[in-house]
């Protein structure tokens, strides 16, 4: 029997799952996270540290910056990628998505199509990077985990991110769509 027509293969690996299934499964692994590590899921925490590692690799120094002079900041600088839990988890998200894509036979490298996409990626990336740092996280750390940990900061983040998404949608239509 061909694998591609097997009904269990199709349900588990091929056909997209519903959004609500996603909500339930993500919640389960959020609970796994808080039960095993005393924290919740976050993504952007290590990004600034990655930047610092690169700068240090080229002989630069950042340990006099306020951000890296705190106890946790200094500890993060001293770690390597494989001993930094949050960095390993981020790599896991990439590989987990790759795994799902391959098991569905849907992997293809998708080139950047035009200059508009380059602009959107650069500008959008910078805004997300800066924003997530000063707001202590992204959609996951500040919003999903913030709200789930019953923090008011999560709801404030959600409200103003929605305002940002509104402006972003206008910009996208105006400048980044043909």
């Amino acid at each position, binding site marked *: 029997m061909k694998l591609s027509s097997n009904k269990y293969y199709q349900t588990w690996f091929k056909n*997209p799952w519903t959004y609500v299934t996603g909500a339930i499964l993500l919640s389960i692994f959020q609970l796994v996270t808080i039960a095993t590590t005393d924290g919740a899921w976050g993504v952007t925490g290590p990004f600034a540290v990655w930047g610092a590692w690169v700068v240090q690799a080229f002989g630069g120094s950042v340990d006099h910056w306020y951000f890296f002079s705190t106890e946790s900041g200094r500890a993060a600088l001293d770690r390597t990628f494989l001993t930094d839990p949050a960095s390993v988890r981020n790599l896991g998200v990439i590989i987990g998505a790759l795994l799902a*894509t391959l098991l569905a*036979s849907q*992997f*293809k490298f*998708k*080139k950047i*199509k035009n200059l508009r*996409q380059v602009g959107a990626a650069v500008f959008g990336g910078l805004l997300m990077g800066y924003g997530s740092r000063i707001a202590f996280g992204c959609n996951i750390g500040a919003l999903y985990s913030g709200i789930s940990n019953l923090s008011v900061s999560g709801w404030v983040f959600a409200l103003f991110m929605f305002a940002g998404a509104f402006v972003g949608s206008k910009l996208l239509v105006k400048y980044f*769509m043909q």
Partner: protein
Amino acid sequence: MAEFELDCLGEACPIPLVKTEKKMQELDVGDTLIVMIDHSCALKNVPEWARKNNYDVEVEEVGESEWEIFIDKTA
């Protein structure tokens, strides 16, 4: 009963859906729109939108991470 193509290959969400919505308005009843996509998110939100509008939808996987969505403008 004409057939139209909409090439959304390489376009990130939500552009395929926005273009599909716009294109379907131009079509006459009985026409078919073929939306070509390679973004897995569009594979979900374009058919979802079309079904909600009571159009007939068929999805065909034409390659790795490439799909054609057939939407019949039924009403």
